[in-house]
């Protein structure tokens, strides 16, 4: 039956159509939105918390909140911006409440990272004397990111890791583009100090 339904109803590419159907009382439309947005929102929250379990719980809460308040979504911004905004706000609130810094629960990098030229360059695999392992690099990156403030980390995560443009980040955080650039500038300067060992000569 589910197969027939999927054959009759091909996946809808347009978010607004799925949002309208959800607002009209079709929960399966929201399921499609969950499937679509889980990977990118997972990446956003994970890179802000550095903890897989916290990310999972937060992501569940984010979708639950979105489902409860989807009737208030008027389409003034895109659904993607709206979802990212909910995710960032809930994650920052969570990090503020989490007074004690938790031990990070990092995911293992995909094995394809070993073929990435940036990884090869960073781990100095051509120079065995300075070579570091994947986990060493992962821990150093995480330590550097954890020294940033919540706001700076959110901007770095969205821009540098997820590749979201400045204008979109400004809409998500409800700040000006100038503020986004300013936060990025100071965050990068701080990261340079933390990761100076990887700086090219």
């Amino acid at each position, binding site marked *: 039956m589910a197969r027939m339904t999927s054959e009759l109803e091909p996946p809808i590419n347009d978010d607004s159509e799925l949002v309208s159907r959800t607002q009209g009382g079709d929960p399966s439309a929201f399921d499609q939105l969950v499937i679509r947005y889980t990977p990118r929102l997972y990446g956003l929250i*994970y*890179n802000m918390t550095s903890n897989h379990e916290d990310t999972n719980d937060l992501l569940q809460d984010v979708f639950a909140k979105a489902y409860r308040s989807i009737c208030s979504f008027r389409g003034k911004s895109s659904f993607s911006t709206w979802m990212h905004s909910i995710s960032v706000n809930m994650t920052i609130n969570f990090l503020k409440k989490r007074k004690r810094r938790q031990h990070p629960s*990092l995911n293992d990098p995909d094995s394809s990272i070993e073929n990435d030229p940036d990884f090869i360059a960073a781990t100095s695999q051509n120079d065995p004397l300075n070579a570091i392992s994947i986990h060493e690099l992962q821990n150093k990156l995480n330590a550097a990111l954890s020294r940033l403030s919540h706001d700076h980390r959110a901007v770095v995560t969205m821009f540098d890791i997820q590749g979201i443009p400045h204008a979109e980040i400004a809409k998500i955080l409800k700040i000006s583009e100038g503020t986004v650039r300013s936060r990025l*500038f100071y965050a*990068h300067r701080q990261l340079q100090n933390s990761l100076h060992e990887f700086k090219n000569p």
Partner: protein
Amino acid sequence: MNIPNEPNAFAGDETMQRLLRLKRYEQPPEGYYEDFLSEFHHRQRAELLRPSLTTLLLERFASWAAEFRVPAIAYAGATALAVVASIGILQVNPAAPTGAPAAYAVSYSQTPFSQTPVTIQKMQPVSLRVNTQAEGDSTRLLPTAYLLQGRSANHESPLSF
């Protein structure tokens, strides 16, 4: 510090950006995304079944009240407390008419058993003497009458014909 006008101030040092991009390789365990939706549904259902805080508090109070047993000694204690409180109220209350009971108490305690009690002394005896005035007048044949506290009394019913 002035921020450079170029779109990305960090562009000069791309090494950091390349390093940060490596974070994209950190992915959740295999099958996580596939299972996420079913876990979401499971949590949503659990949320629906979860009672609200008010309901939870009421249920807990009800169960506590149902299990609450009054020990037998509590009844005895409550009775003793009530007695003590009553005595205290009687002794402390100044508005109570203490004169009359005291007088009665004194009269009872000082009066010998042979003497008539005060309460009975205050009762007025009924006079049963024969109405001599009517008896002396021989010309008039009137039935025997008695005086009850100064009033004449007749043994004949006024309803007799």
